[in-house]
């Protein structure tokens, strides 16, 4: 099990706001998923989005991508990078995203 997979299982999924997680490598290959989500499909999407947003930031001189949040009325997803892996975390849309992002930052920087 990769380090991010262990982190996801041990800590991230335990947050009450989290409804699903998907861990992939940079190529989008599924490594781990929890919750009611099609891990393979969404994992590939996370990898593609992260790569495109990463190129955006580089072109603009903003540095490396740390995370991206995608929010809508029914779904909120945070895509975060950790070493060579990418985690997509689906969060209850009724909960505060900002507060959760702070908690997540603490976990990922341990």
């Amino acid at each position: 099990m990769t380090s991010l997979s262990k982190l996801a299982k041990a800590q991230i999924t335990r947050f009450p706001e989290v409804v699903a997680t998907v861990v992939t490598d940079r190529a989008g290959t599924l490594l781990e998923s929890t919750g009611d989500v099609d891990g393979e499909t969404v994992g590939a999407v996370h990898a593609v989005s992260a790569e495109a947003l990463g190129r955006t930031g580089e072109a603009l001189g903003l540095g490396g991508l740390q995370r991206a949040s995608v929010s809508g009325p029914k779904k909120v997803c945070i895509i975060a990078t950790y070493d060579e892996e990418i985690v997509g975390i689906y969060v209850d849309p009724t909960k505060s995203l900002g507060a959760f992002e702070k908690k997540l930052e603490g976990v990922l920087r341990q």
Partner: protein
Amino acid sequence: MFERILLGLHEVEGVQATIVIDGAGKILASQAHAVYDLPLLQQVSRTIVSAVDSVQLVQEDWELVTATYSDGKVLIRNLRPSRPQGRAVVLAVIADSRLNTPFAGVAIRVAASKLKAELDSPSASGMVAAIPNQPPSVSTSAYSPPVNGRSPTGSTRLAPSSATPPLPIPPPRPELAASGLSWSGLSKSLNVSTSGVSVVDDAASRYLTACTKALSASVGPMAKVFVKEAVRRVCTDRPFSREDAAALVAELLPHIGSASDREDFNRALRSA
């Protein structure tokens, strides 16, 4: 009208550029500091559309994408025209690390509702339906650090003239040095991708960091990009060393508009 709406977003501290992009990656309107020239904004528009196209696959009703980088943020708002024949349109806001995200969120919602109204108006239908990549009439100004939270911007309007071909994406550059050392920027961060320049030792890396910090006082977050480009011009295929400092400074000075800023830049590097 688009430009006036986008100008309102620049009242928020930290906002560096705003772009309205259609589903094909074409720029409908933009307001940006001069360091963000049209080719760069066009390149970025295409990568933004690429990202939101993939997001759309799994989240059709997405409203906002917020990408957080080590030195800034990009916020992408789905404008979603209500007309049946309307194409997907997004508003992208590029900001540095000073951005107050909650404030920006409010300003973006206000701008988005105004832009949606403009897009839904009959006069906008021709603009959204068929926009060639046209050389705009760009008014540019040298980058000035913001005063009282406001910064000068240049606006881009699509002028009715001949279409220009799409810009090629530059090929990836070699990253590894003979020394195995590379410099990729100011801060250590969890990078999705890095495109560093090669350096011979830690002293060279520290010098590049000092150069970027000194240059950013004049040109903002683009400093890192300018430094990397300058190193590649000075050193081509060999790693950067401290001996290349004078040549590097000569490459960077033209980016600085005012004589006093150039003096400050030189002074900052004397102690580096």
